[in-house]
């Protein structure tokens, strides 16, 4: 294990963590405020990626593609909220889970019908496509660095939104006291719709940012959404701060585990044993972390104070 590899994997872990935060923040908002569980959150991530891909080809620029994909994803979020989601708020979680599971099936098939079964790779402009030299001898892809910085920027924006704006005040009031929001004369239904659309945009943005690295593909949201669940479970469902810290933690642990666990294992066991067991353990690492956190704190690391 040399230091430069550790630094690079650290940054890769940060990049994953930031994406996880974009997904988890929307989940935790919809849960904290509407008490709603959205399995189809990963579908919005996928939709964001596909919109971004198409719009990048249409405009000829990834930046424009991304900027235009954001309102498109918001519209999809709105449509879903208005047609299905809002009828479910009053139902129990089992109904949320089943209906949004149905939504996933619809989204996956519709996406396939529109964009075809193959993934679409998204080209980056030259400025973003290169590498930057961080330290002498250590280079890192520019775009990944952009993801990290962009994600942190969004996190800062969310922090500001939740803590210093009227919408944020409503969000916090909604999370702690529904009737109070009603008493303030604010239309709670509109608030819910807005929050859902915001969550959709955040998830879509994560998809847009990852698309140039992986590619936009059918079902891409269905794997990462579970990791995002682990994030909000560990962080404490409903807590923005918890989502942020847990997202970075899990991004780092997952990435570092996959790259360095076999080296660690080799210190205590034979090379052969390490090479067979390390992949298995690193595949389960974040779930083991989740189990440990829950065993100690069933409500997660930062449970929201008022629910």
């Amino acid at each position, binding site marked *: 294990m040399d230091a430069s590899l550790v630094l690079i994997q650290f940054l890769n872990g940060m990049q994953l963590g930031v994406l996880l935060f974009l997904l988890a923040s929307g989940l935790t908002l919809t*849960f904290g405020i509407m008490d709603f*569980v959205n399995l189809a959150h990963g579908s919005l991530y996928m939709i964001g990626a596909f919109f971004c891909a198409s719009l990048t080809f249409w405009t000829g620029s990834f930046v424009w593609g991304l900027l235009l994909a954001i309102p498109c994803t918001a519209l999809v979020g709105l449509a879903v909220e208005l047609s*299905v989601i809002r*009828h*479910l708020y009053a*139902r129990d*979680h*089992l*109904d949320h*889970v*089943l*209906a949004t*599971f*149905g*939504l*996933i*099936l*619809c989204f*996956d*098939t*519709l996406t*396939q*019908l529109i964009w075809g079964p193959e993934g679409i790779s998204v080209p980056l402009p030259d400025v973003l496509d290169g590498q930057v030299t961080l330290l002498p001898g250590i280079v890192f892809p520019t775009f990944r660095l952009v993801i990290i910085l962009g994600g942190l920027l969004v996190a800062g924006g969310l922090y500001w939104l939740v803590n210093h704006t009227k919408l944020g005040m409503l969000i916090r009031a909604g999370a702690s006291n529904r009737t109070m929001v009603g008493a303030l004369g604010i239309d709670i239904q509109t608030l819910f719709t807005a929050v859902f659309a915001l969550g959709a945009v955040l998830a879509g943005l994560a998809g847009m940012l990852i698309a140039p690295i992986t590619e936009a593909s059918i079902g891409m949201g*269905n794997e990462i959404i*579970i990791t995002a*669940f*682990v994030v*909000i*479970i560990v962080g404490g*469902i409903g807590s923005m701060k918890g989502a942020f810290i847990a997202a970075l933690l899990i991004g780092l642990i997952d990435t570092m585990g996959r790259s360095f666990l076999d080296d660690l294992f080799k210190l205590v066991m034979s090379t052969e044993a390490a090479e*067979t067991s390390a*992949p*298995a353990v*690193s*595949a*389960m690492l974040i*779930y*083991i972390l*989740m*189990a440990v956190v*829950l*065993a100690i704190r*069933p*409500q997660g690391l930062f449970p929201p104070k008022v629910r």
Partner: protein
Amino acid sequence: MADVSTTDPAGGARKLSVASWFMVACLVALAVIPVAIYAGGNAFWLDIATRLVVLSIAAVSLNLILGFGGMVSFGHAAYLGIGAYCVGIPTYHALFGEFELIATNSGIFHVILAVIVSAVFALITGAICLRTKGVYFIMITMAFGQMIFYLFVSLETYGADDGLVITSRSEIPGIDMDNPLAFYFLCYGSLLAVIYLVHRIVNSRFGMVIQGAKGNEDRMRSLGYSTYVYRLAAYVIAGAICGYAGALLGNFTSFISPDMMDWAASGELMFMVILGGTSMVFGPVIGAALFLLLEQLLSAFTVHWHLPFGIMLILTVLFVKGGISGLLARMGRSNG
């Protein structure tokens, strides 16, 4: 086992007759129709029926915790996978050597292994999941299911995400597992046994406790019940039964892969339970049947059958309360 358990036996006296006749009719149909078609030279429907019966066992086990215990587990397919790999891995080693301890084709061993490993996994994960409630429980069961999924994806020896071919089925004395009819009746008999077992459990003292804890856990604790241990026991029983179903499934498909325990598979199991209705032990069998029929029908029209299926799922949730057996129960009530 003429009577089906219901959560409310009083109304039961009336609706029991409708529901239990329906159940008997279904079970007889399951024993006769696929076999008759098979005898007529068409093997396809026996295949479907075998899958139906095996998935029904899994769904009935899920309903024990979901319907009767109120534990919304979204990771139940993991046990199907565990059970299947408990067949696949020993037969793999029986063929290619290593791990002599478990290398065998013995079906009895496979089943015992599947049940024990599933029970242990349920015990460990259940002990953690059941400390939490509501959404936490749903997501954590889902995450643990996915953990097992990734575990098998990472196991190169057993084919990773390409899966593993089971070259020879489990050997059970007295049963020719390669004969489709014999195998079908093994599965069918297992389903009857599992329905009866769950029926007895649900109506026993233990069953009353888990149903009470579903209704109002605080009430149960103030009556003096340590609900946690009873729920955990139910969780373990359900996992063990589903592990058994997994062992059958592994034998049936002869090809196993992590995909069978993907969370989409758990979602399908859950859908079967809800569709069939959670208030009767037998309900999930109807749900599984409807699910497989739907799958056949829709996929005959279009390869994109997930779309109409997804829409139906959403509409079911929005408009049908209590699923099919809930409908049946309501029918029985208004008739009676």
